[in-house]
């Protein structure tokens, strides 16, 4: 079956404009991933790993310097190509309230996509009501302005906006950031319902691993703009093949005072992309780094358990 979204060796360079740096600064390097129909894939990594740049590149909001984006098996290119893609793939933004124009009513905002993409909208009020009902909001909310919404309501309006043109893929950038735990659970349940009812596929960008465990079938881990591990969520959590993935999982604070961590799973910060480490780019923070890691960059290779990992010793970690 053809995946909804395929990225083939996608690279994004940030132009620096200097004489010696004319080549640009590589933000994303050689990223290959796919999202199947109705599948939910999570993209995880720390700030600066290139997660948001990847989402922007998929939506055509960021120029690609190499590789290809395919939607439904067809290569997407040019302004018109990405404009069409933005009709079939919708984006949910991180800051839900800030992504809503303060001077427009909720009713107008949820139907705005029809106007942007010049789609027929015979009865805007009815369409707005239906969209709001899909995300569990009462019709009266259509007359409100964004500042009158709670965080959870704003997030739902963001989902309703994304669903307006019945997309097949939703790219969600930190869909629950800044929400309280009870509201976060509501938004995650809503996303799961929509996936079941509408056959939506998700590409979820987040650094919240607890969320990933609940919503993603597959997980793709980025470090400094490269994929370092990919595999089915349950397997990756049970036995991470890359030390970076293992560190991220271990760093998550557990809501149980009896399981306090005695030691730090990961030290230091993500290195600057201006000074990428030689060899394996994770070796500067890796608790298991050996000499070969400082000299030779590992490739992204299949592990014996059938996942992908960019580590010289991936198979040993899993034993």
């Amino acid at each position, binding site marked *: 079956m053809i995946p909804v979204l395929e990225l083939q060796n996608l690279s994004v360079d940030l132009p620096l404009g200097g004489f010696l740096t004319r080549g640009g600064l590589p933000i994303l390097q050689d990223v290959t991933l796919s999202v199947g129909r109705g599948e939910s894939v999570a993209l995880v990594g*720390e700030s600066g790993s290139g997660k948001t740049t990847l989402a922007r590149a998929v939506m055509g909001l960021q120029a690609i310097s190499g590789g290809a984006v395919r939607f439904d098996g067809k290569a997407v290119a040019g302004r018109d190509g990405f404009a069409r893609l933005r009709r079939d793939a919708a984006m949910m933004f991180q800051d839900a309230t800030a992504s809503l124009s303060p001077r427009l009513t909720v009713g107008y905002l949820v139907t705005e996509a029809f106007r942007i993409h010049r789609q027929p909208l015979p009865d805007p009020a009815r369409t707005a009501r239906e969209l709001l009902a899909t995300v569990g909001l009462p019709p009266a909310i259509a007359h409100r302005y964004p500042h009158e919404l709670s965080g959870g309501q704003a997030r739902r309006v963001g989902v309703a906006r994304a669903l307006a043109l019945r997309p097949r893929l939703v790219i969600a950038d930190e869909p629950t950031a800044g929400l309280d*735990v009870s509201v976060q659970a509501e938004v995650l349940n809503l996303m799961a319902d929509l996936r079941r009812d509408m056959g939506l596929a998700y590409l979820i960008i987040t650094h919240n691993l607890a969320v990933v465990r609940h919503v993603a079938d597959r997980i793709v881990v980025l470090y400094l703009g490269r994929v370092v591990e990919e595999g089915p969520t349950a397997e990756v959590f049970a036995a991470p093949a890359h030390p970076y993935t293992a560190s991220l999982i271990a760093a998550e604070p557990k809501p149980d*005072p009896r399981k306090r961590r005695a030691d730090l799973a990961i030290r230091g910060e993500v290195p600057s992309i201006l000074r990428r480490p030689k060899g394996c780019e994770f070796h500067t923070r890796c608790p298991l780094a050996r000499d070969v890691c400082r000299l030779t960059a590992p490739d992204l290779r299949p592990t014996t358990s059938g996942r992908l990992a960019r580590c010289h010793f991936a198979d040993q970690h899993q034993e």
Partner: protein
Amino acid sequence: MGMTVVLEVQNLSVAYAMPGGALQAVRDVSLSVARGEVLGIMGESGCGKSTLAAAMINLLPPAARVGQGAVRLNGTDMLRLAPAAQRALRGRSVAMVFQDPMTAFNPVLTIGQQVADFVGAHDASLARPDRLAAMLDRVGIPDAARCLGRYPHELSGGMRQRVAIAAALLMQPDVLIADEPTTALDVTMEAQIIHLLRDLRTTFDGAIVIVTHHLGVIAELCDRVAVMYAGEVVEEGPVDAIFHDPQHPYTRALLACDPAVVDPASGRLPTIAGRLPDLTAPPPGCAFEPRCGMALAVCSQPVPRRVPAAGRSVLCHRGAE
């Protein structure tokens, strides 16, 4: 136990003047924290935890009105001091670390200038570069002497939060209040800040108050926890009791809907249906009653605070059976 109480909040009520009436953000809260102790104040948006934290350092916004109650620091009621005396206490005796380490700093001054200004206002001898650098080193900033010459934007969020903690600790305050200290950070940086705060306890003999909605941070760091709902402390107790033997239905519901504790195979996540009550006219009975799955007829009556065990308290009718 022989613990010295440094900060005591007694029957405190704080309201905000609003066009539709006064919004009662903090309602009759009593809490205390002892030297060497870490108290967590846990709750969701709108529960009043940030207003309570602001009252603890006497930094309430102008629209806030203290109705009744006291905030005693080493026995002195801070809310009733003259402004100059309040300023002297703030920073020196109570220091605060804010959620967003970027907006807490002035972008056009170097880290060294700002920290020196802050501590120099209280004690000029603390502002010496070698003492500043030593404190930055203590909170885990590599190359601390050079960091003093940097501007806030040159540091990562985690590093800025470390600087904020260092600046607060330079004064050797009696109480350090941290409002959502890790919320703006990546999980790896969050773990490091938690580690740092825990490690500081060995040398810092004041009390620490952590205000957050993040259950994991509370569980990792705190000795005692106060759970807030609709402006009230609905449950208080040792961290292990709160997480393993919660008595209030709200505490139980809150713990149950954290995705970190729910088995992913179970599918749906539990939620808490309904909304916070309107705090301009809070109900006379239990504020959680409309959302509570265990509510009885008596729950619309004023709630007695009961003490199920030493060091614990619960604001719920049910347990009184």
